[in-house]
C-alpha cells in the first residue's frame, strides 16, 4: 500500500525567517497522493507557515519545493491554485458585501461574461452546484456573505477551494470555527479527495480530530520537524509528548470529579428571551464552573452576551447577588459595576485592543473603578501585578498586544477581568486557537479561579473541554436549554451530543 502512493509534493530543507526569527527550520516533508497528512504542533511551531509557503501566501527564505518531481516556485496564490493547490485559512476568507456566488468565483468572473456583462444567474447556478458538491443545501448563492454565520462563510470557502479541483487541499485550523455538522461535511470531503487519489494537508490543534482523519501525522516543534508517525503508530500520549517535548501530566483538565457546589447563587438568569434566546433560566454559584454546550446557532454565544448586558432582551432578567446586594443587569455598565467580566470569542476583534500596549489593555477594563486622574505609577503597578500573576510573556508592558502569541494574548484578556476584581467571568471559547501547552495553563488558571470562588460561565464548542472542566453543563439547542449534565467521570461526549442535535 505504502509503495503505491505517489509522491505529490516534497519540500527539501524548507526554511522561513521573519526578520531574525526562524519560524520554520529546514523542514523536509513529503505529501503523497491518496493520503491525508496531519500537521500538529504548538502555536508558533511553524504549521501555518509551512502551509503558507506551499500555497504561496508566504515567500520561501531558503530550501526547495518539488511538485510532481518538478521544481515548484509559486509566484502568487493564483499561481498555486493553477498548480492545483488550494487552501482554507484560519481567518475569514470571504468578503462581506459580496454574494456567496460572487465570493466563490472571485477573480474568475470572466467565465460568466456574456456580451460584456457578468451573467449573475449563471454564476449562481454554478455556485449552487459547487455548494451541493460538498453536500451543502441550505446556503443560497444569492445571499450576501454578511448574512451568513461564520461557519457558513467557512463552508463557502471550502466549496470554493474544492471547486477548483485541487490536487492538494490544505485545511489550516478551520475546524475550530465549525460545529459538528460543518466538521462532518469537511471530514467527508477530505476522505473523498483522498479516495480520488488527491492529497490533503490537515492542520489542527485537535489531536483527536487528526488521529481520526489522518493517515500520517507530522509533528513540529519550534519550527523543526520532530517526527512523522503513521496511522498504525498513533498514540495520544506519545504525540502529545513529542509536541511539547515533555511529559504532559494526567491532570490536563481538572483532576477531581466533584461537581457539587455549595456556594451562594451569584447570578440568576430568568426566562431570558431575545431574537435567538428562548426562555433560558439558570443559576450560577460562587466557585462554580458552569459549562454551556451547543452547536453554532444554538444561542450559546448570545447567552454569554446577554449575561454581560450586550444582548437586547425581550423578556426575562439577569440578576446578580454581590455581597447580598441584588441588582439587575441591563447594560455593560451594570455588568461591570456588579463585577462581571466577559471574554469574547473573537479575541482579536472584540476582547483586545491589538495596537495598544499590554498595560493599556489591562488598565482599560479597570478604568471605571479608577479615579479620574491616573498617574503613570498607578498604571504600571496595576499592570505589573497582573503580568506577574499570570506570567504573561512579553518584552515589556508597553509592547503592543497584537505582537503577542495567541496564548499570551488570551492571558491578557483574562488579566483584564482578574485585575478589576470581577467575581463572575464569562468565557466564550477561551481556548479557541491556542495550543496544548497554553491550554494546560488556561485550564490550571480556570481551576485556580474556581478555587478562589470565582463564578465562571464557560461557553465552548469543544466538548472535551466542557466535560473536563465544568461542574455542570447546560446544553443548548435552538436558543433553549435542551439538557443538563452533572460532572462525573462517566460523562462522555455522546451524552451531550444527543441533546444538541
Amino acid at each position, binding site marked *: 500500500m505504502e509503495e503505491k502512493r505517489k509522491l505529490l509534493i516534497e519540500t527539501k530543507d524548507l526554511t522561513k525567517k*521573519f*526578520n531574525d*526569527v526562524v*519560524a520554520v527550520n529546514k523542514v523536509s516533508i513529503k505529501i503523497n497522493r491518496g493520503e491525508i497528512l496531519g500537521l500538529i504542533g504548538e502555536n*508558533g511551531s511553524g504549521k*501555518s*507557515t509551512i502551509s*503558507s509557503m506551499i500555497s504561496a*501566501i*508566504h*515567500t520561501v527564505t531558503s530550501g526547495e519545493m518539488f511538485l510532481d518531481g518538478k521544481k515548484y516556485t509559486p509566484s502568487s496564490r493564483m499561481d498555486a491554485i493553477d498548480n492545483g493547490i488550494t487552501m482554507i*485559512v*484560519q481567518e475569514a476568507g470571504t468578503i462581506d458585501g459580496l454574494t456567496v456566488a460572487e465570493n466563490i468565483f472571485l477573480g474568475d468572473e470572466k467565465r460568466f461574461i456574456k456580451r460584456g456583462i457578468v451573467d449573475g444567474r449563471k454564476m449562481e447556478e454554478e455556485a449552487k452546484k459547487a455548494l451541493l458538491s460538498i453536500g451543502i443545501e441550505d446556503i443560497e448563492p444569492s445571499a450576501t456573505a454578511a448574512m451568513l454565520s461564520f461557519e457558513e462563510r467557512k463552508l463557502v470557502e471550502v466549496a470554493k477551494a474544492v471547486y477548483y479541483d485541487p490536487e492538494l487541499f490544505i485545511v489550516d485550523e478551520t475546524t475550530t470555527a465549525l460545529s459538528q455538522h460543518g466538521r462532518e461535511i469537511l471530514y467527508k470531503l477530505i476522505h473523498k479527495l483522498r479516495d480520488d487519489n488527491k492529497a490533503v494537508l490537515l492542520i489542527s490543534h485537535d489531536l483527536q480530530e487528526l488521529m481520526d482523519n489522518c493517515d500520517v501525522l507530522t509533528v513540529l516543534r519550534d519550527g523543526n520537524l520532530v517526527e512523522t508517525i503513521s496511522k498504525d503508530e498513533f498514540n495520544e500520549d506519545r504525540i502529545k509528548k513529542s509536541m511539547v517535548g515533555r511529559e504532559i501530566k494526567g491532570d490536563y483538565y481538572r483532576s477531581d470529579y466533584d461537581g457539587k457546589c455549595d456556594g451562594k447563587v451569584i447570578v440568576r438568569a430568568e426566562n431570558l428571551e431575545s431574537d435567538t434566546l428562548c426562555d433560558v433560566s439558570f443559576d450560577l454559584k460562587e466557585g462554580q464552573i458552569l459549562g454551556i454546550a451547543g452547536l453554532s446557532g444554538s444561542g450559546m454565544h448570545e447567552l454569554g452576551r446577554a449575561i*454581560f448586558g*450586550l444582548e437586547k432582551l425581550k423578556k426575562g432578567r439577569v440578576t446578580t447577588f454581590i455581597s447580598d446586594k441584588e441588582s439587575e443587569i441591563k447594560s*455593560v*455598565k451594570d455588568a*461591570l459595576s456588579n463585577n462581571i467580566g*466577559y471574554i*469574547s470569542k473573537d479575541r482579536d*476583534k*472584540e*476582547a*483586545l*485592543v*491589538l*495596537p*495598544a*500596549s499590554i498595560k*493599556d489593555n489591562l*488598565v*482599560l*477594563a479597570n*478604568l*471605571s473603578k*479608577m479615579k*479620574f*486622574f*491616573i*498617574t*503613570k505609577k498607578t498604571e504600571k503597578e496595576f499592570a505589573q501585578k497582573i503580568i506577574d500573576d499570570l506570567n504573561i510573556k512579553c518584552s515589556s508592558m508597553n509592547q*503592543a498586544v497584537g505582537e503577542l502569541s495567541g496564548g499570551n494574548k488570551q492571558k491578557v484578556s483574562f488579566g*483584564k477581568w482578574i485585575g478589576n476584581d470581577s467575581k463572575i467571568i464569562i468565557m466564550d471559547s477561551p481556548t479557541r486557537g491556542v495550543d496544548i501547552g497554553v491550554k494546560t495553563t488556561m485550564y490550571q488558571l480556570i481551576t485556580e479561579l474556581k478555587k478562589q470562588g470565582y463564578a465562571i460561565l464557560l461557553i465552548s464548542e469543544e466538548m472535551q473541554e466542557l466535560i473536563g472542566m465544568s461542574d455542570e453543563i447546560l446544553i443548548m439547542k435552538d436558543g433553549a436549554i435542551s439538557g443538563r449534565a452533572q460532572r462525573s467521570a462517566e460523562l462522555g461526549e455522546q451524552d451531550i451530543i444527543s441533546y444538541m442535535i
Partner: protein
Amino acid sequence: MNSNKLISFIKNNRNAVVCYGSFLAVVLGFSVMTKGQIFSAYNLKSLIGQMCVLMIISCGMIFMFGHGTVDIASGAVAGLCSLVITLVLNKTENLGFSIVISIVVSVLLYLFMWFVTAYLGLMSIIASLAVMFIARGIVTYILSLNDGRINIMHYNLIMPFKSDIRLSIAAMAVVIIAGLILFNYTKLGKYCKAIGDNKLSAIQSGTNVKAVMFWCYVIAGVCVGIASLFLLARGGNVGKNIGAGKEMDVMVAVILGGMNLNGGAKSRMEAAIIGTITYTLLANGLTVAGVAQEYITLVKGIIFIVIIGLTLRQNKTVREMPR
C-alpha cells in the same frame, strides 16, 4: 547590523521620527536658508502670534482624531464664532460675555455633530461637513446683509490679543497643559484612544462610547471657541474668508507632528504641539526665505504629500508576519 537596528527603530517609532524629524529639518533648514533671521526676536514674536490660533485648535482636535473622528468643520466654526464675538461686542462692549457666547456657540455646533454621529449613526466626517456648510452659510448670509464685511467698533478691546504676545503665550500654555493632562493622565484620554483603535473592544471593556465622545466634542468646541478670539484679533474684521482652510492647516500640522488620523493608541498630544510649531515655522520660513506668496500653498501641498507618502507607504508595505 547597526543599520538594521536603526531601520527597525525608525519603523517602530515612526510617529516620533516624523514628529521630531520634520521639526528638526524645518528648524535647521530655515536657519540656514534665512541665515538665522527666522529666529530673530522680531520674527519669533510674530511666529508666536501666527501659531496661536492653530495651536489651540490642534490641541482640541487631538481628542477628535484620537477617537477616530476626522473633523473638517473647525475653520468654518471658528469663522462663525469670530462673527459672533464681533456682533456681541458691538452690541454690549463686554469682552468676557462675548467670549463666553463664542464658546457656547462653538460647543453647541460640535454637540450637534456629536448628536448626529452618536445617535443617528452617520459617519462623523459627514456630520462635520454639514456643520461646515451651515457655519459658512450663516457667515456668508449675515455678511451679505452688511456689505460683505463687519468691522469691530471697539477694536481696542480685543487688540491685546494680537499685540500682547503674553496673552497668546498664556492661552497656548493653558490649552497645552490642560490637553496634556486630559489626554495622558485621565480616563477620558485613555477611553478616547481605545475607541480610536477598537470600538467593539472598548465597549466590552466598559467604555461608554457616547459619553466619551460627548466630552471629546465639548473639548474640541471649547478650543475652537477660544481660538476664534485670536483669529478675530489677528484679522481685525470679519470677511467672508475668515477661518477658511484652518481645518486643513490643523490636519497638516498634526500629521507633521506624527499623528495618525485614524487615532488610537499611538495618538499623542505632542503631535499637536510640535506639529503646530513645525507647520508655522514652515509657513513663516518660506516667507522669510523669500518664496513668493503665490507659491507658498503649493510648496505646503508638496511637503504635505511627501510626509503622507512617507508615513502611508510604510503602512502599506506590510511586513510579512507569521500567521
